[in-house]
């Protein structure tokens, strides 16, 4: 059958019309199609092809003709729709560099990339919440890296995200891995069965890296933001939504939650949500006493970041988790302790931790404080152990150089390690330092060569100790994977060349440093007797 549609007064360029004709011919059930303006020549052509002369009589050169030879009225209508579609060319960006104009706002970016599904926002706090709201309203999931977003704004954003079923990571969310892609500060981690949700940046990085290095992988790592679980009004909104999403994600076999101790009511809700999710789960609330697993519960409580990773990998593999402090055999650890303490001077007493990762610093404080009961820090809340001056270490001290006190007007030490180098250089002549523990966080977002930046400070501290007639053990660990752009093994080699003992995890580095610290104390007490 031959059908003709005439759109009055719709002018299109002939080249585009020819292209459109070609496209319309591909419509199923269409033998032939001519899309053209109603010029005398085209009208003659269509009449000669046997299209209705009466219908053509009223057409003018300003009218669009869609002439279809096809099997049914349905395919004629489909062909007409295809022609309209081809002619409308909606929001198609121009090709070529000359036409490339970078979008200056979210709306135009969405015009350029219609398939966008996530907004990563690291703008100044004052504007970040507004852009996040617009992203959610546009149906995008959001990772809000920015801090300095008000509590009210956070609650409003999370309420909106909940209503729209969208993921709202942050504010103050430093890391995430979505569909294997590292976001902001994140490592290149193999994909696998473990889903991670955390309110801590370097905590998530350490756990995901250890899962990778244990031969398993991560399905999704969701950052919730520093206040998500800590603040009752936020109420774990992102964490709870993340649990639900991971529960219904087929790839995820085990769920891991990492957070600073949540508000009590929120912790109960999180555990209840994990129970409802029904998948094996691991919870690590940094600094909270580890709880025994309730009978029959799917939730296992870990004592440290490494244990959280190890438990998750074991659960994913369906194996039993065996608790251990060190990967290496005990004899080997004892040999290291002996070697590293042999040449210490009697005046050397204290442990010092110089950290760039907040949760890694927390972990160091917890391990050391548990042993000595008197470790100072700039990021603890117990007033007895808060450094009076964050810029000066006293006794045993673990300092988090990523704390606000150090980052005003300068980048975070994971990006620019100079603040830590300066601090170590300033304290290198403190003869009471007996053991140092440091972290090195690699991966996307981090400094291009953090081990190389740290090495001179390690060497300087060790040289100063030797000059005083002593020795300085330096324990280190690398948060990273073989896939990270900095090259894990080269980073490790640089640390070892500088004299560091590189341990397989932050927990092991801290545990070994603490062991050394205790050995010295025992020796000192024995000497005093």
């Amino acid at each position: 059958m031959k059908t003709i549609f005439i759109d009055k007064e719709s002018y299109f360029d002939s080249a585009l019309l020819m292209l459109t004709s070609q496209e319309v011919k591909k419509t199923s059930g269409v033998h032939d199609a001519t899309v053209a303006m109603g010029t005398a020549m085209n009208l003659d052509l269509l009449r000669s092809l046997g299209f209705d002369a009466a219908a053509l009589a009223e057409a003018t050169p300003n009218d669009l003709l869609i002439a279809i030879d096809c099997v049914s009225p349905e395919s004629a209508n489909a062909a007409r729709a295809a022609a309209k579609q081809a002619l409308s060319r909606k929001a198609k960006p121009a090709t070529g560099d000359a036409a490339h104009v970078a979008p200056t706002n979210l709306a135009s970016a969405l015009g350029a990339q219609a398939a966008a599904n996530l907004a990563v926002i690291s703008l100044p706090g004052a504007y970040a919440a507004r852009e996040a709201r617009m992203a959610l309203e546009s149906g995008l999931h959001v990772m809000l890296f920015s801090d300095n977003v008000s509590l009210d704004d956070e609650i409003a954003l999370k309420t909106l995200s909940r209503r729209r079923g969208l993921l709202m990571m942050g504010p103050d969310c430093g890391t995430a891995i979505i569909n294997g892609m590292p976001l902001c500060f994140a490592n290149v981690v193999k994909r696998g069965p473990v889903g991670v949700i955390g309110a801590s940046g370097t905590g998530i990085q350490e756990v995901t890296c250890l899962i990778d290095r244990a031969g398993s992988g991560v399905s999704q790592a969701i950052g919730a933001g520093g206040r998500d679980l800590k603040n009752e009004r936020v109420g774990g909104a992102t964490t709870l939504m993340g649990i639900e999403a991971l529960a219904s994600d087929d790839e995820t076999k085990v769920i891991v939650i990492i957070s600073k101790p949540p508000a009590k009511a929120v912790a109960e809700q999180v555990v209840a949500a994990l129970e409802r999710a029904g998948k094996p789960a691991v919870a690590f609330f940094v600094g909270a006493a580890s709880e025994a697993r309730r009978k029959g519960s799917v939730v296992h409580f870990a004592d440290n970041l490494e244990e959280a990773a190890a438990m998750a990998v074991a659960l994913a593999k369906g194996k039993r988790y065996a608790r251990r402090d060190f990967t290496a055999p005990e004899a080997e650890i004892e040999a290291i302790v002996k070697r590293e303490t042999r040449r210490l001077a009697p005046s050397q007493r204290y442990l010092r931790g110089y950290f760039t990762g907040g949760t890694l610093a927390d972990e160091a404080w917890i391990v050391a404080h548990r042993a000595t009961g008197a470790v100072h820090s700039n990021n603890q809340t117990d007033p007895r152990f808060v450094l009076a001056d964050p810029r000066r270490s006293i006794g045993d001290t673990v300092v988090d150089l990523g704390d606000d006190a150090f980052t005003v007007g300068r980048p975070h030490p994971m990006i620019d390690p100079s603040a830590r180098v300066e601090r170590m250089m300033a304290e290198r002549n403190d003869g009471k330092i007996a053991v140092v523990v440091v972290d090195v966080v690699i991966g996307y977002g981090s400094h291009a060569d953090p081990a190389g930046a740290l090495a001179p400070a390690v060497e300087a501290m060790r040289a100063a100790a030797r000059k005083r007639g002593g020795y300085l053990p330096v324990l280190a660990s690398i948060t990273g994977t073989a896939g990270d752009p900095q090259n894990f093994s080269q980073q490790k080699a640089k640390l070892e060349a500088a004299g560091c003992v590189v341990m397989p995890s932050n927990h092991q580095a801290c545990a070994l440093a603490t062991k050394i610290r205790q050995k010295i104390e025992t020796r000192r007490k024995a000497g005093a007797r």
Partner: protein
Amino acid sequence: MTEQSRVAPVTALFNSRLSVVNLGLASFADNLAAVGAEVVQVDWRPPAGGDEVALAALDRIAGSETDVAAANKKAVDILLAAKPALIDIGPAGEVIPGMTPTTVLHSGPPVTWERMCGPMRGGVIGGLIYEGLAKDRAEAEALAASGRITFAPCHSHGAVGPMAGIVTAKMPVWIFENAAFGNRAYCTVNEGLGKVLRYGAFSDEVLTRLHWIETDLYPVMKKALKLHGPIDMKGVIAQALQMGDEGHNRNRAGTSLIIRELAPTLVQLGEPVERIVRILEFLNANDHFFLNLSMPSCKCALDAARGVKGSSMIVAMARNGTDFGIQISGLGDRWFTGPASLVEGLYLPGYSAKDAAPDIGDSVITETAGIGGFCMAAAPAIVKFVGGSPQDAIAYTTRMYEITLAENAAYQIPALDFRGSPTGVDVRKVVETGILPVVNTGIAHKEPGVGMVGAGLVKPPRNCFRDAVLAFAEVYGAAPASSRSDP
């Protein structure tokens, strides 16, 4: 609701290709690109240039109970659906509603005789002499200042006029009808370049030509249009855009198309050959003949989109040489004005920036409707006026998609792979992005009667857009944040 359905968009994210919009640190985008993710980096700037008052107003509008997006869609759909056609020509006093023998219409927002710039005063003087209301300049000036003349913007009477835009009762005006919505628009006949009334000239030469238009051109054109029937302007403009015009500063193709369209009719009228030759020569000698057809076509399309409750679409931009003004669909006939600025452009031999009058004329109605400067990419031949390359022209047009509501599939731009022209300026987007509408324009001499001295680009004053957003927030916005806090 089950858990699955509540978080369905999140699980959908887990099962689709990650596609990121990055706002902020560019390194985050670089990293994602390095691992093979799809990412677009936003060249972000503080919205509204960091203007907190404007931003608060935008947020109040965003929190409005009125569905502004739906209202804007309605308004821009009206604009896109418009079918302006040239139907007739007739004396302004008889066809323009509200005209009286002592009415003088002018371009731009309302302005008093005292505040009028040189070219506009010249146009008024010429208009009053042409009407026989004054015999010379002195009489005309005295009459204009006397209060006995009713000055009004063309825009208030469904009309538009280039430059001074002077319309008086006896002047023949083109009559346009919007076939889709029935409303009409009017514009005088373009007189040509050089010493012409729209540039404030009122010498005998100017008045003689105006009389010729009235006595010779008008009756012939009236007959021709009657014989020919309505000319669909949408089709003509669409073709002109594909022939290197943008419908504001370049009208060579449009003028040619109109001559082509009318010539066969003109020769059939049985008029003396000399008369037809003179008319065709007049049309042929004036590349901007089509401007007085493209402008009312745009006016006719935009007027139909006026008065849509809750719409923040701009329905008029216009200048009178003293003020630049805009009107918003959802805010009635209110004008939001700022000082008319100087045009940046190229000058004809013998003239320079010191000769230029501030920005003047209703011709910015073309940009308001999505052609003119918004279609710079279609008119590479005139990019030299803005001191740029064809690439710059493409960039100008591409920018305009950020402040507009729709793309006009009827007006396609070849250089943009036939993308539709950016159409329907949302005043909210102008304030939010800080991107001002690109306006092409001619430059008038500041003294009456000298004429055109150049052409270029003009930057509209920012404050009129900001004022419009603040007013829009007052009318449609949610209560201010301070009075919205929890009880």
